[in-house]
């Protein structure tokens, strides 16, 4: 009974703590139509959109803003006609499929999203033309493999932290995806909230996330380990942590999708069959550098060797004079920081949303499982394979189902080689 009282008090304490946080005004309830116009991932500014009722009575004309967002509020629910003026689009672009009229339905008290998929004019014609030839298939495959490598490196950053934490503490951390989101959202807060340029903002975010990773182990997971909480119990608790963090992030960040203020519009470079924005090349370079540095640190430094010793056998490591708690704390700090970096990179190459970490978490798991749970280098190999597989599979699979393919592969791997590519047999039993 006393414990129940403590639990309830803690619950109420948490409530007050949460409510004391600073405010962030979310969008108000709405009834109408909205949408975001994007061309190759970049927002389209100044496109004209006119909304009329089904009968043709004009309601409103709007233009998209700098984020490519447009929004029309209507008084009555019902069917509406939305027309996008193709002349107001950037010169080199067009609506995919050529149809620039949509007839969505507005429900009471609800905002319906209207989609206009935009594409580059030349590209579409070129693709149609090339689709007949053999070369275009390979060009497309090369482009997708490149994008997949980019995604794979981001997954690898997340997987590295997850795998190291698993190796040293035995915790399968379902809240790792939220550490990824946290990094992106922190960078967004510094970038947009405090108007800091993205690169210093990202560095700040990574540092803060590393500190939070340290704090998480010092004040939460470390304490649980001391109490003798089992690894399965900790895994279930981590799901609670994920729900808590995800919704706190949503509380502050809101449910919408955002982008950083820097590096949004960059002209693509043509490298052979691949076109890439310079930011993607830089991002991949940084990701690769971080992965190599962490890998070398694990192999060469005293702490790295200690970390590997702890993941081999914590008791033996402790008895040979390694401070296991210190090693675990370093791993948590590093893991949190690397996950945050993954979040920034993900936000840079796609966009920011409070579910971004949740969405990538299963891909991280797929990468980790494929490589072998608990092996740092297996995680790298597995993640890159998963990333490339996901993107290249869009040659045959509709893009919205691309993650499904990766998750099916995850299950198939477990059927035939449950220890993964570089894993050891004893870990699975």
């Amino acid at each position, binding site marked *: 009974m006393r414990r129940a009282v403590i639990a309830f008090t803690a619950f109420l304490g948490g409530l007050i703590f949460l409510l004391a946080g600073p405010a962030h005004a979310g969008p108000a309830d709405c009834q109408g139509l909205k949408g975001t116009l994007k061309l190759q991932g970049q927002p389209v500014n100044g496109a004209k959109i006119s909304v009329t009722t089904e009968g043709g009575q004009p309601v409103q004309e709007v233009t998209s803003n700098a984020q490519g967002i447009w929004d029309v509020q209507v008084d009555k629910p019902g069917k509406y006609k939305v027309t996008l003026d193709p002349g107001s689009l950037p010169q080199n672009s067009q609506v995919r499929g050529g149809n620039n009229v949509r007839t969505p339905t507005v429900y009471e008290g609800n905002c319906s999203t209207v989609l206009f998929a935009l594409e580059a004019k030349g590209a579409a014609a070129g693709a149609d033309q090339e689709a007949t030839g053999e070369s275009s298939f390979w060009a497309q495959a090369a482009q997708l493999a490149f994008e997949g490598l980019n995604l794979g490196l981001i997954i690898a950053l997340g997987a590295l932290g997850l795998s190291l934490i698993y190796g040293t503490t035995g915790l399968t951390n379902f809240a790792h995806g939220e550490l990824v989101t946290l990094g992106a959202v922190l960078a967004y807060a510094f970038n947009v909230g405090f108007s800091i340029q993205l690169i210093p903002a990202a560095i700040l975010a990574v540092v803060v996330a590393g500190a939070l990773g340290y704090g998480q182990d010092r004040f939460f997971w470390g304490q649980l380990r001391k109490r003798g909480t089992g690894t*399965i119990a900790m*895994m279930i608790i981590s799901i609670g942590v994920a729900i808590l963090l995800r*919704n706190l992030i949503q509380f502050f960040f809101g449910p919408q999708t955002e982008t950083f203020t820097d590096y949004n519009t960059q002209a693509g470079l043509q490298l052979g069959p691949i076109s890439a924005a310079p930011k993607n090349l830089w991002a991949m370079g940084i990701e690769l550098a971080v992965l190599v540095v962490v890998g070398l640190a694990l192999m060469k430094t005293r702490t790295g060797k200690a970390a590997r010793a702890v993941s081999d056998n914590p008791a033996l490591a402790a008895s040979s004079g390694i401070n296991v708690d210190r090693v675990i704390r370093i791993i948590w700090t590093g893991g949190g920081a690397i996950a945050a970096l993954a979040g920034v990179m993900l936000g840079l190459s796609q966009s920011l949303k409070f579910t971004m970490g949740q969405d990538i978490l299963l891909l991280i798991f797929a990468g980790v499982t494929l490589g072998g749970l608990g092996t740092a280098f297996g995680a790298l190999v597995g993640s890159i394979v998963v990333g490339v597989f996901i993107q290249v599979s869009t040659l045959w699979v509709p893009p919205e189902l691309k993650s499904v393919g990766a998750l099916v592969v995850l*299950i198939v791997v477990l059927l035939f080689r449950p220890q993964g590519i570089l894993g050891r047999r004893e870990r699975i039993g």
Partner: protein
Amino acid sequence: MDWLTIFTTTVHAAIGWETVVYGLAAIGVNIHFGYTGLLNFGQAAFMAVAGYGLAVTVTVLNLPFWVGIFVGLGAAVLLALLMGIPTLQLRADYLAIVTIAAAEIIRLIFRSVQFKGVFGGSDGRRGFNGDFYAMNPYPEGRYGIGPIVFDERTLWLLTVGWIVVLLACGLVYLLMKSPWGRVLKAIREDEDAVRALGKNVFAYKMQSLVLGGVVGCFGGFFYGLYNGAVQPDVFGTEMTFFAYTIVILGGAARVFGPVVGAMIFWVLFVFIGNLLAELVANGYIPFMTSIQVGPIRYALVGLGFILLLIVRPQGIFGDKREIAIDAR
């Protein structure tokens, strides 16, 4: 402050459709996790295939209601077999990862544009509960005591729902008293010892997964029947997580634990949500908008879940020795 509304919606929640739906999901999770020690994090997938099985059979194939129920049940059994074969011989965290992945696969397929003709994309399917309400014996009207009133449709759903909940509880009680149930509990405690006694652990685990999935899938039926629609995003990981919270709150490995857990959970969830919404609407919490009440409510569930597992993992009625979370 509209205290009457807060009070009536809270009381409604204690015996309402949410409690039926999540109570059934939690009874299923209790069979998996509480009795057998299986970490199935894809309970939402069982509910989704059942709800969609019914919906698609009735609306797309134009077959009768009862055929839809059988399709839903069949789909749940099939899903359990598909999820169990690759994972039940592996360690607990692999089962957790695979079940969560399978639930995501199913949600993504249900919401994809590719299969919009069958599953209806992100709008889902609606209009399949006519036959169910045609069986309603209650004449039109409003039934209740004082401010707590249900219309005849809700009353019919709740009658059937609570009968199914009680039947499921009775089934769990009888099965867990039987030799079969004792093997399940033994698997939870020590799998290797059971194997040494010559039992086929894999088969028992599979039967447990199927049984829990089938019980949980009734939650999917009632969700669809009450709302008159199924949408893919309803069956996300949050739904499974709520079911776990309910099981642990009520007490794992207890027959009525999930039912009591569901009642307490929904009373608290609805009460806190309404209270916060009213406080915000009346300007007592100036820094929060009404749209932020939703996330806070979920965050509090997460926080409560963490504290519950740390401070009182056996929940309200559970026995600490019967919790599988510290084993292995």
